[in-house]
C-alpha cells in the first residue's frame, strides 16, 4: 500500500515560513471550514496551524549553526493517536496512509493530542474539534488542477525546494531515493511510531582546492608568467659550459 509523506531537507530550509502561511491559506479556505484565529491583529495572536517552522541553534558560540525545522503531522505508520480515539474520528487511510480526522465525528475530547508525542495536533477553539495536517488531501487528488500542482500547498510554496512529496513505500520514488541516498531519518524513533515523514540532515559541503589548481603548473601557453626557481648548485649544464 502507498504511504504518502513529506521529506524535508533541513540542509536547504531557510526558515522563511512560506510553507506555514501557504498551508494556512489553503486549508483555511478549504471545504473543511476556516481554521480558527483569535486576536489575529491584536496582542498575543493565536490560532490553529497545521505546520510550524521552528529555529534551533546547534553548538556553542562562536561555533554555532542555525537549524530551521518545519514541523507538521508525520503521518506515522503506527499512529498512536488513532487507536486511542474513542469515536473513530481519527483514522489512517489504507489507500495512501494519510492520517485524518473526521470533523463530523470528533467530540473534541483532545485525547488523541495527548497520545501524539510530536504535538502535531491542534484543537480548533472555534469548531471545537481536533485538527491536523491532511497532506492537502483535497488538493493532491484534485483532477481540476494541472498534474504538477497536485501537491500539498507547503511543497508548492517552498522557494528552496526543501520539501519533497511522494510515496515512501515506492522504492523508485523521489522521496525514497532522497531518504536512501541522503540519510533521511525519522523523529523520536524510540516510540515505535514509525513516522512516514522523513528529514534529510544538514550536510557540510567542502570544496577541496589544491594550489596547483589555482595556478596552471604546466602552463602550456605561457599565459601565466611562472618562473620556476633554478638551482643554485652546479648543474650538468654548468659543467658542460
Amino acid at each position: 500500500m502507498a504511504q504518502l509523506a513529506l521529506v524535508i531537507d533541513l540542509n536547504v530550509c531557510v526558515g522563511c515560513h512560506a510553507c506555514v502561511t501557504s498551508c494556512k491559506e489553503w486549508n483555511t479556505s478549504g471545504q473543511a471550514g476556516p481554521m480558527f484565529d483569535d486576536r489575529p491583529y491584536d496582542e498575543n495572536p493565536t490560532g490553529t496551524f497545521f505546520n510550524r517552522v521552528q529555529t534551533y541553534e546547534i553548538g556553542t558560540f562562536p561555533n554555532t549553526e542555525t537549524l530551521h525545522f518545519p514541523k507538521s503531522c508525520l503521518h506515522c505508520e503506527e499512529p498512536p493517536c488513532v487507536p486511542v480515539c474513542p469515536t473513530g474520528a481519527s483514522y489512517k487511510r489504507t489507500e495512501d496512509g494519510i492520517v485524518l480526522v473526521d470533523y463530523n465525528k470528533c467530540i473534541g475530547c483532545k485525547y488523541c493530542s495527548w497520545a501524539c508525542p510530536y504535538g502535531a495536533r491542534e484543537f480548533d477553539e472555534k469548531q471545537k474539534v481536533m485538527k491536523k495536517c491532511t497532506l492537502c488531501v483535497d488538493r493532491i487528488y484534485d483532477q481540476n488542477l494541472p498534474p504538477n500542482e497536485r501537491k500539498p500547498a507547503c511543497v508548492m510554496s517552498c522557494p528552496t525546494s526543501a520539501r519533497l512529496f511522494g510515496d515512501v513505500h515506492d522504492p523508485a520514488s523521489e522521496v525514497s531515493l532522497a531518504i536512501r541516498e541522503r540519510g533521511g531519518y525519522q523523529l523520536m524513533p524510540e516510540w515505535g511510531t514509525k513516522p512516514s515523514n522523513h528529514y534529510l540532515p544538514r550536510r557540510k559541503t567542502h570544496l577541496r582546492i589544491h594550489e596547483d589548481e589555482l595556478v596552471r603548473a604546466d602552463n602550456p601557453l605561457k599565459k601565466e608568467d611562472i618562473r620556476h626557481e633554478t638551482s643554485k648548485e652546479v648543474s650538468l649544464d654548468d659543467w658542460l659550459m
Partner: protein
Amino acid sequence: MHPAFSVIFLTTLIGVGQGFFLALFTVESYATLKLIPQQDHVSFYALGSAISLVFLIGGLIASIFHLGHPERAWRAIVQWKTSWLSREVIALPLMMGLVFLYGVAHFFNLDVNFLQLPEFKGQLTLLLGILTTIATFALFICTGMVYAGIKFLQEWANPITVVNYILLGGASGFCFATLFAVFQAPDLVLFYAGWTVIITIVALITRGFSLYRNARLKYSSNIQSAIGIRHTHIKQKAMGFMGGSFNTREYFHHATVFLFKSIKWIFLILTFLIPTVLLLMGLNGEKNLLIAAFVVQYIGLLFERWFFFAQANHPQNLYYQTV
C-alpha cells in the same frame, strides 16, 4: 500537562461514588456472612445507592465540560476494542445503571431465590452487588488505563497509576461512608473508619511510590531525538509563533516551581495525614470531625489530581521551549 478542572472533578467524583458503593456492598457481604448486623434496606442501602449515583452523575456532568461536542458524546462507545477512553465511556453508565438497579432492588426489598435455598435471603441484591462491584473495578481500571496507557507520558505509564485510582477512590468512598454511617448506621462508624484509615495508608504507600518513581524518571526522548540532530548543545531559539497555541496551552501547567512543589505537600497532608488524624479522633462518633475528614480528603484529592496532571511531562514540550 495542563490540569483541566473538568477531568479533575470527573475522576475525583466518580472515585467517591465508586468507593462509596464498594463500602455499601462490603457491609452487605459482611452481613450475609453474619459478621456484622444487617442494615435497613431503604434508609441504608437504597439511600446509599442514590447518593453514590449522585456522585457518579456529578462526575459525568463534569466530564461534559471537557468535550468540544458533548452532543456527539454517544459516539465515544464505538472504539472499545482499542481505546481505554471508549471503554471508560461504556463502563461509567454501566456501573451507574447497576447501582440504580441495586438501589431499586433494596428499596422495594426485591428478592429471587436463585439457589433454591428458602433460608438464604437477599440473593438478588447480592447478585446485583457482585455485578456492580465488577463494573466498579472495571471502571477504575478503565479510568486508570486512560492515563497509564499512553506510554510516552512516562509519569503515568505504569500499573501503579491504576492502583492509585482504585485506592484513592476507595479511600474517599469509605471516608464518605463513615460520614454516612454517622447519620444512618451509627454502629458502623468504627467499621468504616477503620477501613478508611487502612485504605488511606495503603494509598499513601502506592501514591508515595509513584512520586518516588517519578522523581527518578529517565526520559526516553530528548531534544536530540526530537529533531534528530546528534549534538550535545542544542538550544531552541524560536518555536515559530509568539502568541501561544494549543501546544503551549494544553501541555504546560504554567505554575511556578514553588506553587508546583507546594501542591505536592498540600495534597499529601490533606489527602492522607489530616483525614487519618480526624478519623481516629472522631471514632466516638463526633459528627463534625468525620464531616471534616471527608471534606478535607476530597479537597486534598482535588490537589492530588491537579498534581497528577501537572507532573506529567509530555515529550512534545521539547519542541516548545522558547518563544
